[in-house]
């Protein structure tokens, strides 16, 4: 009988569920799916040892509290004659603000200072953070960010 008194609450919960069943925020909470694709541009003249086996690029992804979410290193992916490109991809990220730093580690030239500047894919400077959902850096769903970074 006590449970019957909770019926208004039940109706409220049912109404909420109906609304939530077509709510993207709920799906985002269940299936975190944001993706950051990064193309790190490294000047070949300033980093002449990029072809060396011991040279690589490191990217650290941090959340809004600067806690490290992921730390990944990659060898070079392509060279366009002027810049060396290193590609990174971070998937299954929750909504929120992220910071990134990139560091070049050369086998002969040593560690180059980190750089946290973020640019869009056409090279427009964005700042040093990005926040999901973002409908300007990828597809219109707001869950993909294609960005560029420049190594120091």
């Amino acid at each position: 009988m006590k449970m019957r008194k909770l019926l208004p609450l039940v109706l409220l919960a049912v109404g909420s569920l109906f609304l939530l069943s077509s709510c993207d925020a709920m799906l985002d909470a269940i299936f975190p799916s944001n993706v950051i694709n990064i193309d790190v541009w490294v000047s070949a003249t300033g980093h002449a040892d990029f072809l060396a086996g011991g040279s690589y690029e490191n990217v650290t992804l941090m959340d809004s509290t600067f806690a490290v979410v992921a730390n990944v290193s990659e060898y070079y992916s392509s060279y366009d004659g002027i810049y060396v490109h290193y590609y990174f991809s971070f998937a299954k990220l929750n909504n929120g603000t992220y910071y990134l730093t990139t560091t070049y580690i050369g086998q002969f030239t040593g560690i180059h200072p980190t750089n946290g500047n973020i640019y869009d894919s056409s090279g427009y400077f964005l700042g040093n953070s990005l926040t999901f959902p973002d409908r300007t850096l990828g597809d219109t769903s707001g869950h993909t960010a294609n960005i560029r970074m420049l190594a120091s």
Partner: protein
Amino acid sequence: MKKLLLPLAAILLLAVAVPAAFSEAELGIGLSPGSIANPPDPNNVDPILNFHVGWSWSILYLSWDAYAMPDYWVYNNTTYVDPSSGYTIPGYYVPGFLNMFDIGVKILLKPFLLYAEAGPNMLYLRGGTNYGRVGVNARLGAGLKFGFWGINLSGTQVFASTQDLEAAVHQAIHGNWTDLTQGMVPTLNFVIYF
């Protein structure tokens, strides 16, 4: 459609005929194994969450279940071959809610519970759209009810159309339950009754 109306009318008549009619609302949450996609994605094996709302009057049972389906499942179930061109049309690679609206019977022989229901389903895709095609599903379930709460295990079979469901039921009547039960998605439900 007539074939579906007949059993629905029979259920309604049965519900009216049962003398000790009572109504009961229920709210639940359930989990299904994540590896139910066909083919399963080895990188996505997290359990599938579903939300349940139900109402019963006598043995008449109405329910709404929203299954939070992962992107790979939505993709597999929205990809199809265009019959005119023969090309495969890729589906939507986004998560979604599979909303199932069912009607059926629920029989309570305390503490045991049995139910069977069927109805249409609609797939909501993240981004604000509903998938154009309306599917059909059938569900069988059994469980236990202890006062205001209970647990039950259900199996849900999703069909592309009412014709597919009718064919499966027809086969079951003739003793071949394969189409109705093979590929059923098992779900463990926790339910609160009001």
